[in-house]
């Protein structure tokens, strides 16, 4: 194939921001090339520079062996299909397509021939007299393609042309575009952010990110051998984790050593490990290379997408004591008073001044009279010492109504998980069945009641507690003691499978050395 277009070190800056950071790219004859990347990656800018609508700050564009930097758009043998089609509303379908030919002052009979040929190429025979503003999106799209192709350009630029169409139409147009490209046999340069579109149509995909090219390759190469985690994430679904090369054929990740078939990395090198969800097979628990619990199941039509947790996160289990509160009444004046036993962390006791109000709120102490009016608690006395043990605290009103409850002062119990750098803490607590029944979001409330917290051991930054495990029915809880486990995010694998599983199932995961893709670790400027 002959080289048709060459971008040499293209740099473009908008408002002080570099949109293209030195792009080098070769495009050959008859290729269907896709520039793929998220919005703002510079793909449209590159296209507009090639079309001549923008001028690069640095670098050169070579077209067919000639530098075209100073050639205005109307003299370039390149035509564009615009994002919003840009059809001329004052012309019918026929005149829109004939526009370029009329500019070239071709004879009417030649124009009619060419336009009719284009109309049948894009399957719009008989639509010549139609008003373009009354066509459907797909039809307008076809007119825009015909209007560009009728000029017989060497290159057709397509700027996200299917963006405005619905899914079904988009799929149809993808096939259509590929067919048209094969039929006319010219270079198509297609810009999109839709990875599926890129995989379906392209001969070559150029993955762009933040003004740079991350990888150039065929759809198969890009999918099977992504150059780095960025490309892997952009193309298809992926499980990516950090690994360390134990030898040239062994990589360690998830605390295990795995054989691999990638020999590009040296012993001791840090790599990114990619395992595609469709490469993982579900096997009975205990078989395969890992075992885990199904966390969620999403039906995707042909397959199910499972999230399987192979390692639970760092966790802490506490005791929840469910007690009915005992109201005490004062026979002298009819006043009633209540309070719960509670736990206090020794660390907190040492570091923080506890006021009477703090104790009242921790114990949930309240008093009320015969007519249910709140009475303030004016007296609090206790014998709490800064040492582990059981103490008592007494709350009382002005009129000598009193209640005494127990205070458990305990050593703080942190669970520190040095390997994953996470600490987690939570306290036992007392609670009434009513409070549990009234809870709208039980997991969140349990975290509050137990003062559950997790943090990064290195920098003390907070870590989410994603899992609250308990085995009681909040609506029908009775007095007693219950265990509650709080845990941070563990290790999860996304798996695509056609077999049915329910959340909570235990399953084995199997994949072979050929399914482990290793990628260079990239450091990104943020």
């Amino acid at each position, binding site marked *: 194939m002959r080289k048709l277009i060459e971008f040499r070190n293209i740099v473009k800056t908008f408002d002080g921001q570099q949109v293209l950071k030195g792009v080098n790219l070769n495009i050959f004859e008859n290729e269907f090339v896709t520039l793929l990347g998220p919005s703002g990656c510079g793909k449209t800018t590159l296209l507009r520079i090639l*079309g001549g*609508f923008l001028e690069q700050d640095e670098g050169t564009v070579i077209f067919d062996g000639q530098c075209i930097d100073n050639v*205005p*758009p*109307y003299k370039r043998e390149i035509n564009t299909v*615009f994002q919003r089609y840009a059809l001329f509303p*004052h012309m019918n379908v026929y005149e829109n397509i004939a*526009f370029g030919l009329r500019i*070239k002052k071709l004879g009417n009979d030649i124009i009619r021939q060419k336009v009719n040929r284009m109309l049948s190429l894009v399957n719009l025979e008989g639509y010549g007299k139609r008003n373009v503003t009354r066509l459907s999106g797909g039809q307008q799209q076809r007119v825009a393609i015909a209007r*560009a192709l009728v000029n017989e350009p060497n290159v057709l630029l397509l700027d996200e042309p299917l963006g405005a169409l619905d899914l079904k139409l988009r799929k149809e147009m993808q096939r259509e575009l590929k067919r048209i490209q094969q039929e006319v046999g010219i270079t198509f340069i297609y810009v999109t952010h839709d990875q599926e579109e890129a995989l379906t149509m392209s001969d070559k995909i150029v993955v762009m990110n933040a003004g740079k090219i991350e990888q150039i390759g065929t759809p198969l190469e890009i999918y099977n051998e992504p150059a780095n985690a960025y490309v892997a994430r952009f193309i298809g679904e992926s499980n990516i984790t950090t690994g360390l090369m134990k030898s040239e054929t062994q990589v360690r990740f998830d605390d295990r050593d795995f054989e691999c078939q990638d020999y590009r990395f040296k012993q001791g090198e840090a790599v990114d490990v990619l395992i595609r969800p469709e490469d993982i097979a579900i096997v009975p628990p205990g078989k395969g290379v890992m075992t885990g619990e199904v966390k969620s199941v999403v039906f995707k039509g042909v397959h199910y997408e499972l999230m399987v947790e192979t390692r639970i996160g760092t966790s802490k289990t506490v005791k929840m004591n469910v007690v009915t509160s005992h109201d005490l009444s004062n026979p002298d004046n009819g006043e009633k008073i209540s309070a719960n036993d509670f736990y206090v962390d020794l660390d907190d006791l040492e570091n923080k001044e506890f006021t009477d109000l703090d104790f009242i709120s921790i114990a949930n102490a309240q008093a009320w009279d015969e007519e249910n009016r709140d009475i303030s608690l004016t007296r609090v006395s206790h014998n709490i010492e800064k040492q582990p043990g059981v103490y008592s605290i007494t709350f009382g009103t002005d009129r000598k109504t009193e209640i005494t409850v127990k205070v458990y002062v305990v050593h703080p119990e942190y669970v520190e998980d040095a390997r994953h750098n996470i600490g987690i803490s939570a306290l036992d607590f007392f609670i009434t069945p009513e409070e549990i029944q009234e809870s709208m979001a039980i997991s969140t409330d349990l975290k509050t009641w137990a003062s559950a917290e997790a943090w990064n051991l290195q920098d003390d930054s907070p870590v989410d507690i994603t899992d609250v495990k308990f085995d009681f029915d909040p609506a029908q809880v009775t007095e007693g003691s219950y265990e509650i486990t709080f845990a941070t995010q563990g290790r999860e694998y996304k798996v695509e499978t056609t077999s049915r599983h329910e959340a909570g199932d235990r399953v084995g995961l199997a994949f072979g050395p050929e399914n482990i893709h290793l990628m260079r670790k990239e450091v990104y400027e943020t």
Partner: protein
Amino acid sequence: MKSFFRMTYPYILWIALFVVAPMIMILLYAFTKDGGNRTLIFRFTLDNFIRFFQDPTFTKVLLTSLRIALITTVFCILIGYPAALIIANLPERLQTLMVLLLTLPMWINMLLKTYAWRGILNDFTLNSEIKVFIGMVYDFLPYMIIQIHTAIAKMDRDLLTAAYDLGANRWKTFLKVTLPLSVPGIISGITLVFLPAVSSFVIPKLLGGGDYVLIGNLIETFFISTGDWNFGSAISLVMALIIIASMWVTRKLDRNAQTE
């Protein structure tokens, strides 16, 4: 719905009193004759119209009015189109400022502006028709510019890019894309310039001097000075018909431009 309809009664009354009734009176006056001593004789007659079309002085005034309005409109397009095009290509904020500057004189009473022009033009020895032209073009130009500017500004810029892309240079792009797409603006500009220009009477009166008579002045004379309401009404009716006819023509042009 019924109570809602009842709310329109005051407006219907208003329109009946101040629009429909005067029109009927004009119709009545135009087709009747003054019976002398300010009495009205309800007898159908075409005398007023015959008098208007038989007297060459009157038809000449009508033709002059049409000619002046036509030339005024043409000049407004010739000056206004490039102005609108330039404004539409300015950065957005400047555009707003320019449109504001253009509309500013429209808020000043026309009589005042015309007197100002009389002061200025008095120093020059120009014939009265040219003076009237200057006054008319000055007064009606903003309407034309704003209409055309709106049409150009709402045009999709991608259309120009598409035209370059398809091989058209700037001039061809203008001829084949910008100009045809601004036709609706030109047409509504014509409606706003030609119609009031035909019937204007203050500008020709003040700038043209007493010897310069347009149809508006004619109507004014017969109603105010001569007191011949029957003949004045007939002229008014003739002019109303001309206006209706030209509105119909521009409508038709506008629709053609849009469907083509």
